[in-house]
């Protein structure tokens, strides 16, 4: 045991004496720290925004509800907030939340006309990408490891010490093993320590952190093994590093880019614009069609409302909302195909990710943090479900119950219930 410690302390001393290694490790620590810090501040900004929106939404709706008594007017002017809370791990993997919306306000009009509205972030910043822990670990850490390990053997060879060292060393581990262990532990500490601090602040569960750490350490071990193996017989350190960086470019850029190209060529998706157009045409045509053309299919969906479809005027709100829903119904196959295509693309990207370790890690971590497109589409489904609940709340008042008393409005379905 003490023998082991002697070896490790010796190598630790060597490490500290090599200035560029220390600078490299320090830089990775600072970067990882910055990534965690900015991730935490982004997540807390999102949470604060949601809290502010909840309050504003409440008072805004209260104001709207004061005036009209007519359920049609009420439904037209009342908007309802929906949101998707960042998970406890989101600070480490901001994922796609800068591209997909995580907040939305809807009213009772056709959902297909509203759901694609997005309250996105600054596009130019989104295009540059954000620095989060996932980026640091999946894209940068391999480079750090390459720089740390590529000259393990080559350095000793060029300095002419290699053979001497090998013949005098007690065992393989005493020499190379200890050196590799020390460098590997140093890089893990520098990269992961900020994560643990961040997890403590964000209140992530021990299980989640254990899972994430396991993935990250396995990933780092993969790159370390690759770098060590690649440089085993080399004499020129830059040559080893060139090869490894080339491999990194292949894994991080070339394979994902080619995969993306192949996937977007093979998966056919309806154009978003077509969904909107179909929905709009259906809704607008309904104005000129006989009322029964809207009401007959409508009562197939809601047989309980069948006795109340007679109209006494050329315009009634119940008919208005009925044809809104029929517009949704007409656009539904397209809309579903659109979402299915996205899901298929996600699955195919999963296949590609097996050939690209950085992307595989990114995918696993954003999945764990629920910040990927799957989570975004799940949130979209929540919005749809909530919209359906609102419909079911309003329809009885629109069709036969008359004007709702203000007290009933307090019992309207709430998004909180779905979000949980």
């Amino acid at each position: 045991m003490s023998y082991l410690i002697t070896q490790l302390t010796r190598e630790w001393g060597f490490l500290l004496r090599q200035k560029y290694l220390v600078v490299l490790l320090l830089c990775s620590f600072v970067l990882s720290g910055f990534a965690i810090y900015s991730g935490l501040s982004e997540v807390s900004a999102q949470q604060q925004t949601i809290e502010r929106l909840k309050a504003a939404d409440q008072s805004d709706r209260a104001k709207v509800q004061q005036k009209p008594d007519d359920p049609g007017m009420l439904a037209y002017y009342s908007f309802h907030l929906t949101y998707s809370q960042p998970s406890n791990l989101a600070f480490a993997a901001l994922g796609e939340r800068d591209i997909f919306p995580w907040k939305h306000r809807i009213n009772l009009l056709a959902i297909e006309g509203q759901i694609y509205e997005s309250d996105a972030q600054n596009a130019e910043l989104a295009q540059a990408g954000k620095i989060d822990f996932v980026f640091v670990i999946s894209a940068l850490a391999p480079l750090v490891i390459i720089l740390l390990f590529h000259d393990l053997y080559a350095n000793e060879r060029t300095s002419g010490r290699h053979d001497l060292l090998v013949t005098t060393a007690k065992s393989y581990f005493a020499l190379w093993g200890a050196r590799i262990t020390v460098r590997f532990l140093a890089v893990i500490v520098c990269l992961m320590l900020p994560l643990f601090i961040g997890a403590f602040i964000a209140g992530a569960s021990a299980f989640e952190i254990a899972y994430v750490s396991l993935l990250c350490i396995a990933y780092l071990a993969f790159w370390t093994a690759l770098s060590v193996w690649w440089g085993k017989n080399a004499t020129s350190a830059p040559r080893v590093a060139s090869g490894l960086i080339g491999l990194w470019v292949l894994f991080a850029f070339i394979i994902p880019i080619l995969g993306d190209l192949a996937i977007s060529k093979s998966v056919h998706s309806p154009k978003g614009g077509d969904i909107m157009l179909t929905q709009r045409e259906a809704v607008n045509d309904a104005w000129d069609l006989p009322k029964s053309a809207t009401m007959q299919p409508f009562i197939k969906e809601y047989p309980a409302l069948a006795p109340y479809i007679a109209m006494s005027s050329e315009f009634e709100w119940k008919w208005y909302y009925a044809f809104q829903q029929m517009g949704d119904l007409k656009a539904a196959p397209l809309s579903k195909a659109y979402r299915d295509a996205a899901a298929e693309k996600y699955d195919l990207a999963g296949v590609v990710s097996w050939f690209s370790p950085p992307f595989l890690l990114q995918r696993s971590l954003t999945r764990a943090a629920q910040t990927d497109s799957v989570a975004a589409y799940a949130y979209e489904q929540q919005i749809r479900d909530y919209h359906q609940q609102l419909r079911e709340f309003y329809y009885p008042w629109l069709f036969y119950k008359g004007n709702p008393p203000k007290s009933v409005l307090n019992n309207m379905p709430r998004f909180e219930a779905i979000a949980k």
Partner: protein
Amino acid sequence: MSKNNFSKVVIVAKDEWRYWLRSKLAMTVLAIGLLLTLSSVVVTAITMHELSHTRNELQSNAEQSFAEQPDRHPHRMVHYGHYAFRTPTPLSTLDPGIDAYTGNSIFLEGHRQNSAMFAEQRQGTALTKLGSLTPAFIIQTLAPLLLILIGYSSISRERESQTLSYLLAQGTKGSTLIAGKGLALLCVVGLIIAPLAVSALFTLSACESLLAVVSFIVGYALYLSVWVLVVLLASSVFSKNSGSFTALAFVWILLCIVMPRVASTSASTAVPSAGKIETDFAVKAELRKLGDGHNTNDPAFKQFKQSLLEKYNVNSIDELPVNFRGLVASESEAKQTKVLNQFAEQRMQSELKQTQVSRYFGWVSPMVAIRTLSMIVVGTSIETHHRFLRETEQLRFDFVQGLNKVHIEVLDYQDDMNRNANTEATKKARVSAENWQVLQDFNFNVDSADVRAKRSVPAFLQLLLWIVVLVGGIKLVGKRLI
């Protein structure tokens, strides 16, 4: 530089090329570089042409279906609305910029300003999070790496194999040697940029201005020159190949991979911008004060009613020679739009401020500088998107007010008031479809080349500063070269 000296520089450069031609590594790197640039140019050109074609088609379809609507109540057409599509600029085949990150279509209707919808990125695979096969990405991020791989040992190699002192002792000046190696690397830059330049020149035939094309090519040439200088500096300073390589790889990671993200993260932390939903609360509160333009009895229009009665010198709105409901709709649309525009302008300004912060990072990373320069010159930066939003807003306001004018002048007030009485009355409260010609054709054009060039000046200055500083550094080192 004297003529004699220049010929020496050329000899050094030729010799460096001879070395590369014999080196497997250099040739592989060069081949990969050329292949990547070429394929990115071709692939992106095809994709952007397809996009441009589809969007143009969608645009004319939207215009056609608007004009083909049957006889209707004019206000129904206000809600039927219209679509506008952002067609990509000719140069965007080389740098699609934010095209995939913002929605490219917008639904225009009365009383509201919608946001752009259907960003391509949402249908993406997330595979291109780190980089995409666009010429911009390849040249901005990967080309510097190629230059490093080819050039890291240009001076340090001579030193390591002890030919440097020999060369210097024979009367070759340090600066001549460095200049020669630099010239050789610049030739590589020329090779990498060539496909880009050719493709850029082709856009001239698509009516892109020469100024934009030239600033685009010059911008990239300056950027890669910065990297040539960085490589030369590191190679001269470090005594060993491995030292030079490690330092360059480290600098590349920092400047090309880390800095752009640090810039955008810092910008969004430093200038938090409220989202649309959040500002919409204030907008809606403001709009509620203006009254509901669908409801002529809204108290907010009392004064307006009074002024109308006085203007036409009549006692009741029934006697007005024009349709009162149309007047109210038009009046309220104008007022609402004023409020909406005011808030929209605020949002755009805060977004610009944010972007500005991230652009300041161009002083510390040439990659950030060229990224900004490229997107601005090409017309795929945030400013272009704002222009799109402003132009579509004008289009929206014009056609809505055009329809309101039809409402005022063509539709009889009594017919309008009775429109819901029975089917016959509803039919009577319609105007002929000929009136749908109010819609103007929409063709989105990016800002003029002058404006774009002016905007890109800071980014050019950033790159030039890098060059000046690096040349100064190399001169200093060149004198003491041993």
